[in-house]
């Protein structure tokens, strides 16, 4: 009996106390809709972990402008319809001040109109170009576009004088979009795509497709736009079949996990990626070194999992938002939006961000590093 009373009293006190603090000290409300489960959990899971980790950290250090952040995180399972429902909920019910939302292009496209209509700043984490172009007033994005990844790969191919390639792309949104973007710049870089194959996002064996590529005469390199476990299987099958021409993966690989899964087969593979993957290997004078090493250490210590560029994009988004709120001196939506747009020289895990009214991404090709896998680890291609 006694304990029950004590517990009830304690609960009541906590409630009253909590009510008092919120009344005295309004919160900054940030809402997130991420694909923490489902086919895109590869992206959404590290994003969610990063967000929760750093918001707790910021709150522990006193919050923004003396206000604590109240975080709302919803899982859309990769379904755009769910994403829109949760987006509506964040805006209408939770009345958030800003949105960090959209793990995939499809879910992002479902949320952008909501943010525009409610005039709420949104930073999204989609890969495709259409998630940020044409520019919309309230929408921003932190990950590099797939077009940039292609250009980085094609630049490297040109440097190595490899112009006749084959492509094997995932039929998921990521692979398909990057494949299409690559095709728009082949002539610009003088690249000939001799052969194309695809695979389903959950396929477990790509040897038939790769056998066809192997049989195609004149192919000098193979490019694999895809994310998730697909690239690891492609890489294994690639070595299994003994294909010797260089293999390029995309930025969708984005994590040490790829090397773990592909094993020795990953040796010699090249890919464009953010500096985050090679944090410790950056020269000490690299201005990005501190931020990427810090994030990597924090993430890996907290989760026990290898860091991924996707979580990094969330880090960048959150920090850009927090900085903008600090500069605005409040969570006022319009002011925050203006400040996000004025972000200059922000040093993120993805590169240096310079936003402008005509560029709500703010990254250029220098944000990507060309990496090669040697001895089971990333190395920078000079």
């Amino acid at each position, binding site marked *: 009996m006694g304990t029950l009373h004590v517990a009830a009293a304690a609960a009541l006190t906590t409630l009253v106390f909590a009510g008092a603090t919120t009344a005295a000290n309004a919160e900054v409300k940030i809402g997130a809709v991420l694909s*923490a*489960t*489902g*086919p895109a*959990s*590869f992206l959404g*899971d590290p994003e969610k972990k990063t967000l929760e980790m750093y918001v707790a950290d910021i709150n522990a250090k006193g919050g923004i402008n003396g206000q604590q952040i109240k975080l709302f995180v919803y899982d859309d399972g990769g379904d755009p319809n769910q994403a829109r429902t949760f987006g509506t909920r964040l805006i209408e019910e939770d009345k958030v001040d800003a949105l960090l939302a959209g793990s995939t292009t499809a879910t992002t496209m479902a949320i952008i109109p909501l943010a525009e209509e409610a005039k709420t700043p949104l930073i999204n984490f989609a890969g495709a170009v259409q998630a940020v172009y044409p520019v919309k007033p309230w929408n921003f994005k932190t990950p590099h576009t797939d077009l940039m990844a292609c250009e980085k790969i094609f630049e490297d191919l040109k440097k190595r004088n490899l112009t006749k390639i084959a492509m094997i792309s995932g*039929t998921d949104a990521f692979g398909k979009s990057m494949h299409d973007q690559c095709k728009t710049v082949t002539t610009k870089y003088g690249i000939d795509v001799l052969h194309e*194959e*695809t*695979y*389903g996002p*959950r396929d*477990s*064996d790509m*040897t*038939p*497709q790769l*056998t*066809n590529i192997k*049989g195609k005469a004149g192919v000098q390199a193979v490019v694999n736009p895809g994310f*998730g*476990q697909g690239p*690891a*299987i492609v890489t*294994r099958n690639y070595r*299994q*079949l*003994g294909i010797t021409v260089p293999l390029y993966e995309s930025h969708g690989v984005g994590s040490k*996990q790829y090397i*773990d*899964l592909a*094993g*020795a*087969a990953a040796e010699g593979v090249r890919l464009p990626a953010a500096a985050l993957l090679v944090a410790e290997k950056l020269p000490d004078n690299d201005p990005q070194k501190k931020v990427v090493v810090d994030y990597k250490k924090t993430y890996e210590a907290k989760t026990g*999992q290898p860091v991924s560029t996707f979580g990094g994009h969330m880090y960048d988004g959150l920090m850009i938002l927090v900085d903008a709120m600090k500069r605005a001196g409040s969570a006022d939506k319009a002011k925050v939006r203006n400040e996000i747009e004025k972000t200059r020289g922000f040093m993120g895990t993805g590169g240096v961000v310079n936003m402008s009214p005509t560029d709500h991404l703010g990254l250029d090709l220098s944000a990507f590093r060309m990496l090669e896998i040697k001895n089971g680890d990333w190395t920078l291609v000079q």
Partner: protein
Amino acid sequence: MPEFLQFLASGLTVGAIYALVALGFTLIYNASDVINFAQGEFVMLGGMVTVFATAAGVPLPLAALIAIVATVLVGLALHRFAIAPARGASAVTLIIITIGASILLRGLAAVIFDKRFHSLPPIAGNKPLLVGGAAILPQSIIVLAATAVIVVLLWALMTRTLIGKALLATAANRLAARLVGIDTGRMVGLSFVVSAAIGAIGGILVTPITLTSYDVGTLLALKGFAAAMLGGMGSPLGAVLGGLIVGLLEAFGAGYVSSAYKDAIAFLVILDVLFVMPHGLFGRAGVERV
């Protein structure tokens, strides 16, 4: 010719995985008329438990054993707490229960393990064997061999042991089986145990080739179900052949026709077969008694 062999090897490897899932479907269906859509989760559990046990320092063979036992326990629990209490419910009700179980198991795996992909070291190394110009992984051969062994063991269990005969009798006519003193409830439980074990073994063996994660089960269930129906529901031989055929169709479809439509090709063939043979390749047609 090397291409043909390569496609064949690919198709048989992937097909063997589908075959093992289809076999699980068939066993449970035979004993209870339940289509167990959580069968794919058994495969997932086999792989994931082994991965996490080895990561915790348990030697691979012991980890595999732990995984099989854990999966069997899950299978038993599924039967005990979800299927048995709903005895006598309609087939669709039972299907929704297994779908609920599949969501539940996936959710549990995401929390207990993680949401990332994992691999296991192959038993006999990664160096492909060259056969007529085709490169075949030793693990593929192990998977195929294991499938064959499981089929033979199942056949022996069904025809040579009393328990197997009781299982067959339950499959043939539940009422009659009960009348001759067979505890059909236990037989259904047993079918869950055997199906879970087959699923787990499959998961352990294919993880080095296909990788695994908390949500690989859904697609496996879908393909395995299609394979079981192609073979003819209730026929273990049909399940295995159905699985291999679906795998081969996908591989040859991807190799010779179009990789974008390879799944479509497989399903078109399944539909065509069913139009001609409405009970699958080896299903019991049976005259309807009225």
